[in-house]
Each structure stands twice: as C-alpha cells, then as structure tokens.
C-alpha cells in the first residue's frame, strides 16, 4: 500500500493552489457579497484546463481520473467554495455526454465546455422532486422528429449563465418499473420556451449561479436524446459514485481552508498575554480539525480510487466519503469561527463565508440522510431503493 501522490499529482496540486491564491482569493468576498458570477476567473481556469478535466483529451479535456479531480476541487474549495463551484461545476452533466452521448453531441458540447466557451448544467431537481428523483414531473413528448419538453426545474446550478443543459425528464410514463421511463435530453438555453430565473439570497456559494428553469413547449431535435430512451435515471445513477466523490472533495477543501485560517489566527491573536493557540482548548480544536480533515481526505481518495479500481465498493465508499467530508466541513467551519471569536462573525474574515458555504455540501448531490440510507442499504444488502 502506498499513500503518496505521484509527482504529477503533487505538481498539479501546487499549481492549482497557486492559481487559487492569486486569482480567486482576492475576489472571493466581492463575488460572495454581490452574488455575481466570476466570468473572468472561469475563463482563466479554462485556459489552464481546470474545467471538466475528466473529459478525454480528444474532446479538449485532460482525461483525468476521479483522484486528480478531487485534488483540484480540494484546492479550489480551500480558497473559496463559491468560485470553486463555478469552476468545478462549469461542466456539470458532461459525464452523461461522455459516456452516453452521440459522437455529434460529444464534438459539439465537450470542447466548447472545456475551452470555457460554453457552460453546461445538469437539471434534475424540481420543486416537488428533490431527494426522490423518480417523482419528477417534467415531460418530454415525441412530436415528429422533435422532443417537446414541459415542466420546471429547481435549484439548477448555472441556470441563468449556462448554454446547454442535460435535462432529466419523463418520456415513457406508461412503463411501470419505478426507475425506467426517464430520459436525459440535451437542451440549448437559446431554444424558444426556455427560461431561467436566478435564485438570489442563498446562504452560501453565492458566486455560483442557481436558478429555477422553466420549460414551456421547448422543442429540440430528436438527436438531442442522450443515451437510451427510458434509461435516463439509470444512466444518471452511474455517475453518482464520481459526483459524490467530487462533493466529498469539496468538503475536504472547506475543512482544510477553515483549519488553515484558524491556525493562522490562533497564532496571531493574543489574550491574557499570550497567543490563544497556547490555550489547550484551542489546541485541541485545531488538532481535531486537522485530524478530521486528514481522515476525510483519505476516505475521499479511497472513494476516488474505487471509482476506477473497485466499482463494486464505490457506491458505499462514495456515500461514506460524501457524508463524512461534508460533516467535517461544517464542523471545521464552525470551529474556525469559534476560534476567531467576534472577528469570525463578520465578513472581513473568510471563515464567516466558509461557515455559510460549508452547509451546502450536506444538501446537494444527495443529502446526508440519503447518503446514510445508501450506506445502510449497502450494509444490509437490499436492492437499489433509497
């Protein structure tokens, strides 16, 4: 067993960290306060190859595996989860096209996304369908050689800034099997009847664009079907191991960022004539934050490794990593604010932002409760329901 990163992975980490420090750190607060999308830095990230790096080289990506993805996400989120999400989420939905898309879809969408020219989104959730994905009501009906989509999608990352969306919709309601009858369809944002309304007032990750998307008789050519008709939900499930590992990496990054900032502050701030890091209560907090971050990181790497090397174990590992790392992120951000005292309660210190940002990792891509259901299901070995 070997716990060392390769030279390439170390170099990758170092350069992404440098990018995040120089390009993201100085503008993070501003985009958080203004809830504005950081187009410029996303463009720079694209130049460096940070967008959808798992896309194969022939479609403009780097062909990275889940481990390298995790390293990149961790470094971005340690500096700023909001802008980190803009960069790591600029290619949401790319997996579906990579794995199930037609050659035309791949050639049209993937190079555009990796080059930063177009933004992609993945539209699954609806006002009435969150954890229970199979209750979605968005319909796509065949009319001649076109699909006609109707419905509304909720909480869609990149909703008002995106150019393409992979939309999960019901195409074959007559199929009785609970998991069949759904399809993934590629929808261009400039189609008639497509509308997106930005959701403002988010607690955290405020640089990231989130929107409600309305589909009103949106017509797309039948070639826009991604993969097999009726198999959309099952296709989607195939990527949960990867996407949940990615959210786990977000949690590791936030925990790391919170710990670094707390460590620095604790050594600077003096009370009772000594740095507060001299107090055992503070030392123990820092020790726990550091230990938890390390544990979450290795569980995440293990999950990332299993995606390629041991897919049978990946489902449970990805849920464990996602659940644990997101919890550690929330705890570490909480303790980081505590260590900052009053200074941590206002937005001139980053920990205030991390505290608000951390929470989302326990909600999206399957809530904490859903992850625990999955872990228990794998333990008890009973079917695929949640």
């Amino acid at each position, binding site marked *: 067993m070997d716990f060392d990163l390769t*030279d*390439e992975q*170390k*170099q*990758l980490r*170092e*350069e992404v960290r*440098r*990018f995040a420090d120089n390009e993201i750190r100085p503008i993070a607060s501003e985009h958080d306060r203004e809830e504005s999308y950081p187009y410029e830095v996303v463009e*720079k990230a694209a*130049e*460096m*190859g*940070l967008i959808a*790096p798992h896309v194969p*080289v022939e479609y403009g990506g*780097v062909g*990275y595996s889940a481990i390298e993805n995790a390293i990149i996400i961790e470094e971005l989120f340690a500096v700023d989860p909001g802008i980190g999400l803009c960069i790591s989420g600029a290619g949401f939905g790319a997996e579906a096209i990579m794995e199930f898309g037609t050659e035309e879809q791949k050639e049209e969408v993937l190079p555009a996304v990796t080059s930063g020219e177009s933004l992609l989104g993945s539209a699954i959730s609806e006002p009435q369908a969150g954890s229970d994905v199979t209750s979605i009501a968005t319909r796509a009906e065949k009319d001649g050689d076109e699909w006609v989509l109707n419905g509304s999608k909720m909480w869609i990352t990149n909703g008002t800034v995106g150019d393409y969306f992979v939309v999960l919709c019901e195409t074959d309601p007559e199929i009785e099997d609970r998991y069949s009858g759904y399809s993934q369809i590629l929808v261009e944002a400039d189609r008639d009847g497509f509308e997106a309304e930005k959701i403002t007032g988010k607690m955290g990750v405020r640089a990231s664009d989130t929107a409600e998307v309305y589909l009103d008789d949106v017509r797309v050519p039948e070639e826009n079907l991604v993969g097999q008709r009726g198999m959309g939900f099952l296709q989607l499930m195939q990527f949960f191991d990867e996407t949940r590992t990615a959210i786990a990496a977000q949690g590791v990054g936030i925990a790391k960022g919170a710990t670094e900032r707390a460590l620095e502050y604790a050594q600077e701030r003096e009370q009772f004539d000594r740095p507060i890091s001299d107090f055992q209560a503070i030392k123990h907090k820092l020790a726990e934050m550091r230990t938890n971050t390390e544990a979450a990181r290795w569980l995440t790497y293990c999950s990332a490794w299993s995606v390629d090397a041991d897919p049978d174990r990946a489902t449970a590992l990805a849920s464990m990593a996602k659940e644990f790392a997101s919890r550690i992120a929330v705890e570490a951000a909480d303790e980081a604010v505590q260590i900052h005292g009053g200074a941590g309660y206002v937005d001139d210190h980053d920990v205030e932002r991390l505290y608000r940002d951390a929470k989302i990792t326990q909600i999206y891509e399957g809530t904490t409760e859903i992850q625990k259901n999955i872990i228990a299901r794998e333990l008890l070995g009973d079917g695929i329901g949640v």
Partner: protein
Amino acid sequence: MKVLVTVKEVAEVGDDFAIEGTEIAESDLEYDLNEWDDYAIEAGVRLAEDGIADEVVALTIGPERSEETIRMALAKGADRAVRVWDDAIADSFLDVDTKVDLLEAVVDEEEPDLVLTGVQAADDAFGATGVALAERIGFEHAAVVNDLELDADAGVANVRRELEGGVEELTEVDVPAVLTVQTGLNEPRYASLRGIRQAQRKEIATKDLADVGLSPDDVEGALTVTSMYEPESESDAEIIEGDADEAAGRLAEVLREKGVEA
C-alpha cells in the same frame, strides 16, 4: 533558433525562522522557482509559440529536489531540461564565477542562440550571473530587460531596459545574446493541466562535474559565508490600508501627530 533559459530553485523563509551557524534552519525553508526566472521561461516559451524558437531548453544548477522546480518550467512549455549537480558543489558556497563555469560548460555543449536569465535570484540576489555569463561566452548582452521583440531574420533583439531613476533605454542587441529578464516583461502563465501531464515525460538530463569537464577544485569558490544574523529593526513602518478616503484620513492623522501643520 535555440533558446536556453537558466532557472533557479530559491529558498524562501517566512516571518519566523531559526539560524543555525551560518545557515537558516532547513526546516524553516521552502523552495520555489525564482520569480524572475518565471518571466524568462515565459519569454522563451512565447518565442517557441511564435515560431521563432525551435527549441527551449531549461538549465539549472541544483540538487535532485530542484527537479520539482524545473519540471514546472517543462510544464509551462520548455522542451527539455539540463540539471547540473555534484556532491562537491553541495559542499561549497557557489559564487558567481563558479556558477558561470558550470553554465559555460553547458552553453558550449548546447550552443544556444539566445540565453535568457532572470535579473537576479530572490535568495542571494547577486544580480550578476547573467551578465557574467555573457562576458565569459562572448555573447552580446542586455540586462534588466522589460520588453523584448526579436527579429529572427535580422538576428537582432530589440529590448527595453529598465535603468535607475525611472529611466528606460531602448537598445538593439545582436544575437547570439544573453538577456537578463526583469519581472513584468510578460505575464507568466500557469502550467496547464495538459502541460503538467506532458512534463512528466520530458527529459531532465543530469550532469555531474565530470560530465561538464570540471573538477572539484574548480568549484572551490572564492567566497565563504562568515556569519548570518537578523538585523535589528530600528524603526517601525506603518502601511496604511483602506480606500482613498480612509487612507487620506489616516495619513493626515499621522502627519498631525508628527507635528506637521497645515
């Protein structure tokens, strides 16, 4: 045209560090690519991208650890690298003359048309290596270059040099030449993810003293470090932060405190 870029891995210290004898404690040092060299690499890579340079070779004098740094130059687009090191080098303090001996040996072998160096290294800051190398190998040179346009057909580098007192000089330098590059010459890129991947397969040729035709006696430098200490600070400087309004307010306050009256 072949471009040789010299790069150095420099040691950096934080606010707190310990001094052990005539050295800073190894555990307090962090290593990074010399800032000036980053601009030199960028200049070399751009010449290649513009079709002017056929090959960009990075050259360093440094221990095995410095391969991390030189690999960053490869990830940014240098084609291959040469690293010179020997136990005998590790044992002595490398002065400019000795460095030039080592660099000269590689220049003789590589026969570049253009050598790009940083103006200085962030750690020992002699600011002499590039110019001394030019003198030794008989190349034309320009120091502290902050703008560069190369006319390959005419064999002329049009450069702008930054001189003291805000004076700038425009000069033509015939190639082959050595240019010492000032920060701000360009905007150094981040290594792309693809570049990082490709860099793992690029060659870093290592050479010891015998390979470059020198003996341990040749690297016996004329300089030795006799002591190392942290100077006492005699006064405090205040850096005024905030927007123009706040900063002006604070400045006025300080001036008033010091007895300056309107």
